[in-house]
């Protein structure tokens, strides 16, 4: 297990822990990875996530409100108020002193409680409260319903009660985060998603140092699906979230595999001479775009997953690689050297017409289109530096989003709000996140190995 430590507030975390102990019996866990916020906290919306009151005697495995606060923080859209600055610790709307929160500049407060109702059963209640609305109405608004004036509490934006298992705390916390996020931003939350990545342990001391790992989107609960003595690459999710495609060198050459993440059973999909790489599922999950060099140099192909028939998409003596589907599934974005240096191109799969999309910088690689089809996310090389950038697909404006070192392998969250990518941190590849507007970013420092090729799952519920 992991404890997240926010660099900007390590002192506050200690205070928070003490405060939290007044409300919870929770276990302190050893920190195995650390998260560093690299920028953008000031632009996020303040919110009060009050520790949920625990009514019970057993020890809780997870702290619900702590996970919610972490989720909201990681979205870059919210800045949860530090516990030490909270004016009070209410459990329900009726206990909230609206003016006290408004004075702190907080307009939204999340309160709740956890009640032990049986063996490993917990009743979770939470309310999301609009403090300013409550102040305006005095907590009692009058509304016309069927021609009659009735009292409402419309400042309570959301109130839910649910019984959950002890093992579902973390998952339910992500659901609460999704609800809060969607209520306040209008955009679907992506907290109940996962990531897949390749972890590389010390190659001198491990017989099988290359690992295919899946974890919650925040890299909690990592599970190793495969350990290999030879490199593993390019994990990518099927649209239903059940299958990963990836490249394995277990047989001393590259081959593409499909693996069910629940049964862990796998099948070898390709074994062509040369490169078998860069797999990407089509949006309908029926096809897999890939790179094969069986005909002499890397070309883009599409394989029909049912018939296993191949369609060749590119025919060029230059390197063509990194296929990525547009959200409508009608085009592929890809990297090509046909113009001299690697740049991003798009091919219409109906007309087979190709067009160049990127022109800024010395190189552009690893392109992917956001779910709303508005932005192209790329790895841009300018003056020798590799950074994650986005390019507006309508007006062509490019904006560099990151300032980390040797950025690569960007993968966009299914709601299009965040990008996960790989950086070089202390000489080792590690995970980093940046919001699509580039304002909020953070990275993880991993103690026991390199982490690379992250891939964000689709929505899982």
């Amino acid at each position, binding site marked *: 297990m992991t404890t997240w430590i926010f660099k900007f507030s390590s002192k506050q975390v200690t205070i928070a822990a003490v405060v939290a102990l007044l409300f919870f019996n929770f276990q302190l866990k050893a920190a195995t990875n650390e998260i560093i916020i690299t920028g953008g906290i000031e632009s996020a919306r303040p919110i009060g996530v009050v520790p949920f009151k625990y009514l019970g005697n057993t020890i809780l495995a997870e702290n619900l409100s702590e996970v919610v606060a972490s989720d909201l923080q990681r979205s870059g859209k919210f800045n949860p108020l530090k516990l030490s600055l909270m004016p009070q610790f209410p459990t329900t709307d009726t206990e909230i002193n609206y003016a006290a929160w408004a004075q702190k500049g907080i307009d939204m407060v999340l309160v709740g409680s956890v009640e032990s109702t049986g063996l490993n059963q917990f009743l979770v209640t939470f309310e999301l409260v609009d403090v300013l609305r409550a102040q305006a109405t005095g907590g009692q608004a009058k509304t016309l319903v069927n021609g009659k004036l009735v009292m409402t509490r419309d400042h309570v934006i959301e109130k839910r009660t649910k019984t959950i298992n002890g093992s579902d705390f973390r998952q339910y916390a992500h659901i609460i985060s999704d609800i809060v996020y969607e209520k306040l931003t209008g955009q679907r939350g992506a907290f109940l998603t996962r990531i897949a990545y390749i972890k590389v342990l010390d*190659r001198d001391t491990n017989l099988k140092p290359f690992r295919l790992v899946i974890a919650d989107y925040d890299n909690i609960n990592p599970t190793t699906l495969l350990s290999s003595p030879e*490199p593993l*690459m*390019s994990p990518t999710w099927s649209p239903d979230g059940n299958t990963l495609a990836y490249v394995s*060198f277990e047989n*001393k*050459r*590259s081959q593409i595999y499909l693996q069910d993440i629940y049964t862990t059973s796998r099948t070898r999909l390709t074994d062509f001479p*040369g*490169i078998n*790489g*860069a797999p990407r599922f089509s949006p309908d999950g029926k096809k897999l775009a890939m*790179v094969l*060099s069986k005909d002499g*140099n*890397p070309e883009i192909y599409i394989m029909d997953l049912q018939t296993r028939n191949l369609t060749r998409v590119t025919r060029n003596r230059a*390197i063509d*690689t*990194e296929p990525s589907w547009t959200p409508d599934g009608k085009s592929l974005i890809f*990297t090509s050297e046909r113009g001299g240096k*690697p740049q991003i191109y798009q091919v219409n799969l109906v007309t087979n017409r190709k067009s160049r999309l990127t022109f800024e910088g010395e*190189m552009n*690689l*690893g392109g992917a289109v956001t779910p709303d089809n508005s932005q192209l996310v790329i*790895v841009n*090389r300018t003056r020798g530096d*590799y950074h994650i950038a986005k390019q507006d697909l309508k007006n062509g404006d490019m904006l560099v989003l990151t300032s980390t*070192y*040797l950025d*690569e*392998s960007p993968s966009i969250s299914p709601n299009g709000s965040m990008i996960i990518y790989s950086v*070089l941190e202390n*000489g*080792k*590849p590690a995970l980093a996140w940046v919001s699509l507007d580039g304002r909020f970013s953070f990275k993880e420092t991993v103690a026991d190995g390199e982490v*690379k*090729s992250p891939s964000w799952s689709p929505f899982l519920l």
Partner: protein
Amino acid sequence: MLNKNALKTLLIVVPLVTLAACKSGPTDAELEAEANSQAEAAAQQVADAKAVADAETKRVDVAKADALQKAKDMFENEKATLVAQNVVYFDFDQASVKSDFHSVLDMHAAFLVKNAGQSIVVEGHCDNRGTPEYNIALGERRAQSVETYLMNAGVSSSQVSVVSYGEEKPAVQGGSEYAFAQNRRGIVVYQ
């Protein structure tokens, strides 16, 4: 001195005398003994010849084995020498074999031409700048340019195969120029 006629007479008479003597000649026992001794002599001769031949074969075999061992030793020595210098380095984003490495690749080529049964895998590697997928493509191009160099030097295509590991198996960790330079490489791996 005998005159010519006397010699002629002798040549005729002596065989006749001998013939006459035989006619009155040896007993059956004497003949048997004679035959036996002749057979023994022949057998001895055969045995002697065989011993000589055997010795010779043995000598040749030993010499052959020596030569084979010597050749094998030479092969292994030569191979060990080549394995010890099996890396060529590339410039950033480049895949052409630099002239600095022609001589070492020529040595590999000469050895491979001489030992047609020997096969190799050329591995292509990259530094960790750029994306992993692009580097897989670049690494293959590097391995292929080493392959092409060897084939131009007479190595059979059936002896060479290539594999690209891109940036996945760096020789040196990290993001320094030194690490980059060490990682942009082609490796000739003897099978």
